[in-house]
């Protein structure tokens, strides 16, 4: 009798673990939230603003390139994040994950949360293809303002140096990208 009881308990726990394992992180997002579109999608200004907001609020835990440090600081370049819709990400930013150390960003205005997501999408954290990256050698030889805008969106540090000469901004961005590529 006792053995049967333990077997039943074991079965129920195993089933729970299996269910938890196959359930996506985003399954708990309400369908209405999941379907929401980013009102700032495709807006270069929103991407620039998002880059600055990312630097202020997210970079501390996820690093400038959103790769984390593989230890304490988690990467955002994960299949789980890539598979999320804009609505999922906005919902998650608002909720946070207090148990695991992610604070709730409900204190940020909603528009700013969408701007962060616009930036993340531009930076390639999405299921969609990332923005085209200009050729490094060509850019170094002849930095152009349009290409610099792409770099600007990809590196928050460029936003910080926006007031400097655009060529200087580009060089700095390219230096960082080249260093990352070689690594």
């Amino acid at each position, binding site marked *: 009798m006792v053995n049967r009881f333990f077997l039943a308990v074991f079965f129920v726990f195993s089933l729970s673990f299996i269910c938890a394992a196959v359930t996506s*992180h985003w399954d708990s997002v309400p369908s209405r939230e999941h379907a929401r579109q980013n009102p*700032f999608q495709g807006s*270069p*200004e*929103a*991407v*620039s*603003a*998002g*880059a*600055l*907001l990312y*630097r*202020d*609020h997210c970079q*501390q*835990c996820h690093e400038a390139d959103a790769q984390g440090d593989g*230890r*304490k600081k*988690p990467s955002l370049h*994960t299949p*789980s994040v890539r598979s999320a819709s804009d609505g999922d990400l906005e919902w998650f930013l*608002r*909720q*946070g*994950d*207090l*148990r*695991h*150390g*992610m*604070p*709730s960003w*409900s*204190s*940020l*205005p*909603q*528009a*700013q949360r969408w*701007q962060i997501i616009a930036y993340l999408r531009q930076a390639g954290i999405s299921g969609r293809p990332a923005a085209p990256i200009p050729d490094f050698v060509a850019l170094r030889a002849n930095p152009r303002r349009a290409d610099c805008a792409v770099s600007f969106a990809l590196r928050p540090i460029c*936003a*910080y140096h*926006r*007031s400097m000469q655009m060529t200087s901004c580009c060089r700095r961005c390219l230096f960082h990208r080249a260093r990352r590529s070689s690594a």
Partner: protein
Amino acid sequence: MNEIVSKSCQLAALVLLLAAAFGLPAAAQDKPYFVTYTHDLEEPGNLEVETKSAFARPEKGHHFAALATELEYGARAWWTTELYLDGQATVGESAIYTGFRWENRFRPFMHEYPVNPVLYVEFEDISAADKTILEVVGHDGEPDLVLPNAVSRADHQHEGELKLILSSNVHDWNISENFISEKNLGHAPWEFGYAFAVARPLRSAATGRVCTLCAEKFIAGLEAYGGLGDAWALTFRDTSHYVAPVFGWQLPAHMRLSFSPGFGVTGTSMDQVYRFGLAYEFKDADDMLFSPRKGKVW
């Protein structure tokens, strides 16, 4: 008094100038409340040092400047712990240390709801000379602030305080209500109070450039707080109540400035209280103080 105000203004101006000159990243947009708490806790691992000052003159007393220095540490995403060191200077009397407070705030629910509760527990070891007015409870009033320092500093109080913080972020507005109950651990009744506040940033969307004077860096609102009597006399009679517009400015270099002129609305309240706050946030303070913690988001 004028000297105290003048020196404080000079210090604040210097700090502002340095902040604007360095143009470093800003921190999260915290609310500029002085008495009311929201459900926004300190980010885990960060340490915020904030000074909250109060300048006033009771009707039958001297001008005073009270300063509370707050060390706020995000222990977990759902738990913030704080230490306050209080002091005050009264014109014609003395400048004294008045005690400390240790408080903890916990979020019992791990998700964001329309109304988010936070539990607040505090222990105070302060003297009756404390004039920081970080909360108003029971029958606190102007007469308590008139006593000479030499007399009031001898009266030590050990108090426990519980608060229920209810807070909502709705369409960029923050609405917070605090219900306060305080108990002197000696023979004294429970005292009650309240605080209520609303605030909103002047602009919701951020501009895509580094700036110090953009509208989104400013936040404005209104705060109201007062006493609700005690367990022996739960009444509004002889209680103090204040209404105070609040203004916050998110500065570069992880700094924040806040200002609030408060106006008393009952006979036992002071006519005016001016408050200034300056906060600086140390990111990843736990890495500086302790060994790096392991953790993950997912």
